[in-house]
């Protein structure tokens, strides 16, 4: 199996000059293509920090993060933006769709930034919306959708550009049980059928139950790594 993410000796210290807080304290993980991984642990254990660093949103204080044979820890901010655009899909806790665009336009957005052809963009976006069961909402604005529907649009957007992996930070935190169930089923299906790689940070037991691999963090250190 191909390794998609390889993090070696990751350290992250906040407030280095005042009162240092160690968020990551020597994390080593490898995520392979097609995995459905949940990063779990108590609040403040470093889940979000780890996700931000492997997602190229933040720099580690020390260590290496290799994605697609490139050490993204060494990249500059401008390079990281381009790298994220072409390699990583994001699903946020608060959905974070663009409120002034329709569902279809939101899904198309990343492909547009990648300068993909309009016809291809629309085709791929509609396919994803159909897979997510919300094709009938293509011309609706996010404010006209339920939380669960908005999160499905966010997943479709994350998948649209066929990224190397998708990072989902607490994706079910704002959803009710039914929406959570539906969303997890959809993502599991995409993982099975399209071999999409998902990495979650979560507290949610339902997500943990669905995950095929569970990495547990505590005080910035990996304390267990189980594959079901």
């Amino acid at each position, binding site marked *: 199996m191909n390794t998609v993410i390889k993090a070696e000796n990751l350290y992250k210290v906040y407030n280095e000059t005042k009162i240092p807080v160690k968020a990551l304290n020597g994390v080593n993980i490898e995520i392979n293509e097609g995995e459905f991984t949940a990063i779990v642990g108590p609040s403040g254990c470093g889940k979000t920090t780890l996700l931000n660093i492997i997602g190229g949103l933040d720099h580690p204080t020390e260590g290496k993060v290799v994605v697609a044979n490139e050490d993204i820890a060494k990249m500059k901010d401008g390079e990281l*933006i381009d790298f994220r*655009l072409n390699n990583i899909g*994001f699903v946020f806790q608060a959905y974070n769709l663009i*409120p002034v*665009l329709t569902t279809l336009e939101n899904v198309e957005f990343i492909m547009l*930034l*990648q300068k993909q052809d309009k016809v291809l963009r629309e085709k791929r976006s509609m396919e994803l919306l159909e897979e997510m069961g919300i094709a009938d909402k293509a011309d609706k604005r996010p404010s006209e959708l339920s939380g669960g529907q908005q999160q499905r649009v966010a997943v479709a*957007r994350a998948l649209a550009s066929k990224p190397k992996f998708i990072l989902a930070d607490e994706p079910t935190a704002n959803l009710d049980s039914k929406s959570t169930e539906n969303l997890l089923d959809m993502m599991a299906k995409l993982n099975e059928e399209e071999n999409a790689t998902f990495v979650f940070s979560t507290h949610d037991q339902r997500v943990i139950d669905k995950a095929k691999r569970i990495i547990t963090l505590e005080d910035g250190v990996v304390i267990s790594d189980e594959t079901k």
Partner: protein
Amino acid sequence: MILKIAWRNVWRSKGRSFVVMGSIVVGIWALLVGSGFMNGFMVGYMNEAINYDISNIQVHHPEFKTDYDINLTIPNGVIKADDLRNWNGVDGVTTRTIVNGMIASPKKASGVQIRGIDKMNEAKVTMLDSLIVEGAYFEGIKRNPIIIGAKLAETLNVKVRSKVVLTFNDKNSNITAGAFRVVGIVKSSSLKINELYAYVLKNDVDKLLGIGDEVHEIALLTAEGVIETDIVAKYNKKYTGDLIQDWKLIAPEMAFMQEMYGSMLYVLMFIILTALIFGIVNTMLMAVLERFKELGMLMAVGMNRLRVFAMILIETLSLAIIASPVGLIISYLTISYYRSVGVDLTNYSDALESFGYASILYPFVAQETYMIVTIGVIFTAFIGAMYPAWKAVKLNPVEALHKI
């Protein structure tokens, strides 16, 4: 799609967008109407002076204006004037005899400049006949008719048909005098016409001066759009030894005024547009700070800083592009209306006339001013958008995404 997002963002907070657009509309309106009124004052003042007094170009003996010596006439003045009448770009030519002297009524006396004029040609060049408020333009009195200004008539306490005596030095420096009868009274915003000039027929004054058919001044009215300096250059090429001057040299204070009013537009523009910049910065900064999380998400998913910057810039420019035509149309309508009916300032006519201004103001804005103001406003919006756009691109996506 960046354009689409920017455009839709403009209408996301309609109230705020309307406030910015409103301030742009008011800014443009204030700028153009203010400039129109300033131009109205200036053009009115200059038109009065050029049309009724100095005309576009004057020719004299080079030394004549130093002390108004009546023997310093233009050689072959009448022939030169006849020649000038046939020149392209010259709409009217008149000849004048000018002598300083005294005017006296039975009650009072006053110093005047006696202007001996050719009544037909003078009317073509200075439209003096249109300023008559009492009596007629050299009609009804055959012997020695005289036209004086309303203020001078008041000073002398004379009316139409009253008798006045003009006293001045003749060709041989002997004091000579002639009795004249007031045939008309003129009124103008020009201080000189109202108080200092006394118009008589050239033949009448020439006889008293004993200078024959000599000419002290040739005045030219040029056609619309003709550059006066071209006529001056042509004259100098053909005739040497005379002093020919356009209105800018005859009345340098008017040229200075024209220049000053021109710079006033830029001063006014600077003040209003600077105020507008602060309004735009404030509003757009609010728009950026309100959307911090959304902008963070855009950068997280791969929208680069240049695109974020462009998006904020387009949003601001869209506001300016929508508001500018509205401001221009409202300004155009306001100026057109007041240009046709005039702004009545007769309540202040005494004060205005003492400065040579007309009491009815006709605002006027040149076409290029509309263009300058539009470019100025768009440039202002561009400058105003810079700081909010910079603030947007400087945000840290991680911090922005976790902002509540």
